């Protein structure tokens, strides 16, 4: 063993002697796994991604205050749906509800629907319950439940922000048309999800 190698080994041994108490004493398990699983879960399913982005797109079309009210309402009602799932409340037709959310939100973007703010928030909230119930409780084994939920909420919110960001093209005529086509694609994907859910 060379002198340099010996020195490095000695240094590592000293570090290993100093660190264990600080690094390994915290015995809670699954924090990183839970947070990462929660962050990645919403972007792993196209149904959830399209509906979340569509909320942001629709908000951008509607303008203030809907542009921030809808993304505020969605995670809160989604969490309510997740809580219902966690306490064992059965919700029939969850997959159909998720498919209908993509159809409804895609159609709203396609037709640039401008309902009253309360109606828009209620519609978004209604769809959010299905997303929360279906996805909010899919905790991987060994992962920390609360951190999974936090990651899930943050990722969902970031998808809304992505939708709002894309929706800023609404200020240009070509962008408005592109946005409406995007809404049509979301609605078509929703029809495919619906077909899959009922067959």
């Amino acid at each position, binding site marked *: 063993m060379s002198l340099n190698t010996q020195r490095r080994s000695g240094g590592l041994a000293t570090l290993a002697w100093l660190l264990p*108490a*600080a690094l390994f*004493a*915290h*015995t*809670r398990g699954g*924090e990183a796994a839970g947070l990462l699983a929660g962050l990645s879960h919403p972007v792993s399913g196209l149904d959830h991604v399209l509906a979340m982005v569509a909320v942001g797109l629709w908000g951008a079309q509607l303008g203030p205050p809907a542009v*921030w009210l809808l*993304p*505020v*309402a969605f*995670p*809160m009602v*989604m*969490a*309510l749906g*997740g*809580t*219902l*799932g*966690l*306490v*064992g409340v059965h919700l029939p037709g969850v997959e159909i509800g998720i498919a209908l959310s993509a159809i409804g939100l895609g159609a709203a973007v396609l037709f640039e629907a401008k309902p009253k703010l309360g109606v828009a928030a209620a519609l978004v909230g209604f769809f959010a319950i299905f997303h929360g119930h279906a996805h*909010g*409780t899919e905790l991987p084994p060994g992962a920390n*439940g*609360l*951190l999974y*939920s*936090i990651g*899930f*909420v*943050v990722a969902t*919110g970031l998808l809304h922000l992505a939708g709002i960001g894309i929706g800023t093209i609404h200020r240009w005529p070509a962008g408005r048309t592109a946005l409406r086509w995007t809404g049509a694609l979301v609605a078509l994907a929703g029809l495919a999800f619906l077909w899959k859910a009922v067959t």
Partner: protein
Amino acid sequence: MPVFLAHLMTTGLGPFYDGLAHLFVTPEDLLPVLALSLAAGLRGPAGGRAVLFVLPAAWFAGTMLGRLFAPHWIWPVVSAGLTVSLGALAAIDRRLPTAIVAVLAAMLGLWNGSWNGIELARSGAAALGTGLGIACAVFVVVALLGAVAAAVRALWARIAVRVAGSWIAAAGLFMLGWALR
């Protein structure tokens, strides 16, 4: 129903540092503190100042008192309820009197502090040092976050704070679900 306990970590650096670190690795405690800091900061410097001193003091008092209580499922359930309420308070950005904000800070501090105290008694850890560490960590978080929220002037920044409040409320609802499961 399971009894969730506010876990206490061991840094290897003594009870005070265990307490300091506890807040940052315990979302059940950190989330309501973040929510209250944001809600109080949105009320301006007066609201922020009220929480800055009331919350750490109440948390420390709660930690000391909590050693007398027994573990029960009600602790995480009420804590989750407080998280939802405080997150929603930041999200809706309603103007509340400073006295009400201070009462909310006292409620949160006493309740979650007591929950910490129960775990301290159960684990046999040094309550005084750990409790002081937790209270100091709470003070630092409220001072930093409350100041940021109080300094917010631009509309988009205020909306960002409210969105953060809604995310905390949503996480609190999930917390309630996990506690009731």
